[in-house]
């Protein structure tokens, strides 16, 4: 998503909404999380969730605007977002693109295609660099 952001930030706004953890240590922890040292328990307080979000931002120097769902999980519930999902809201405030439910139907390329259809395809001279540690769905 960072690459898509870099390609289209002059045309569209981007907002990351941080929701409840997908693979915390006290629930369904994946081996990849251990390998990449992304080990956090499911936050029980807003402060814990905020701290993990800040760790993420710092580790990846994440450039996209950020908002954190509070412990009522209102944003997550409204958008059926967990574990990961992409939406595009058009200028009229209506859903213009509704991505599939992650992980299997989480397809950033569909969001890119929507943006490309409206603003043109962004070509790269060299292949886009591989993400450093792609455990996080937000990468």
């Amino acid at each position, binding site marked *: 998503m960072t690459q898509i952001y870099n390609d*289209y930030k002059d*045309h*569209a*706004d*981007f*907002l*990351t*909404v941080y*929701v*409840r*953890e*997908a*693979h*915390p240590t006290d*629930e*369904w*922890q*994946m081996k990849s999380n251990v390998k990449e040292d*992304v080990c*956090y328990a499911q936050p029980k307080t*807003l402060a814990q969730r*905020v701290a993990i*979000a*800040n*760790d993420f*931002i710092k580790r990846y120097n994440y450039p*996209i*605007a*950020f*908002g*954190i*769902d*509070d412990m009522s999980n209102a*944003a997550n519930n*409204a*958008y*059926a*977002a*967990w*574990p*990961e*999902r*992409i*939406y*595009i*809201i058009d*200028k009229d*405030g*209506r*859903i*213009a693109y*509704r991505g599939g*439910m*992650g992980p299997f139907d989480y397809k950033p390329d569909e*969001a890119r295609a929507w*943006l490309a259809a409206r603003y043109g395809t962004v070509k790269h001279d060299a292949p886009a660099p591989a993400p450093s540690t792609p*455990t*996080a*769905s*937000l990468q």
Partner: protein
Amino acid sequence: MSSFWKWTIGVFLVLLVVAFVILSKMAGSPRDAYFMVRYALPHMHRGNLKVGDTAPDASLVALDGSSRFHIRERTGARPLVVIFGSYT
């Protein structure tokens, strides 16, 4: 127990095992399949939003942990790409 019920229970158990094997392949291992059912499925919802619906609003907390803003405050002038996810 009548043979009908024995067969019914037997078929049910076989289907359960087959479902678990398929889930294990999808999730990566039997352990992952169990954790998927235990922790992930209760939180996974298709949702009712469709293209064309008014985008819901929700209050979000900024990275400082105290300031707040609404999703809809960020819509209007340009399309807004909203990416939901987490670190883990």
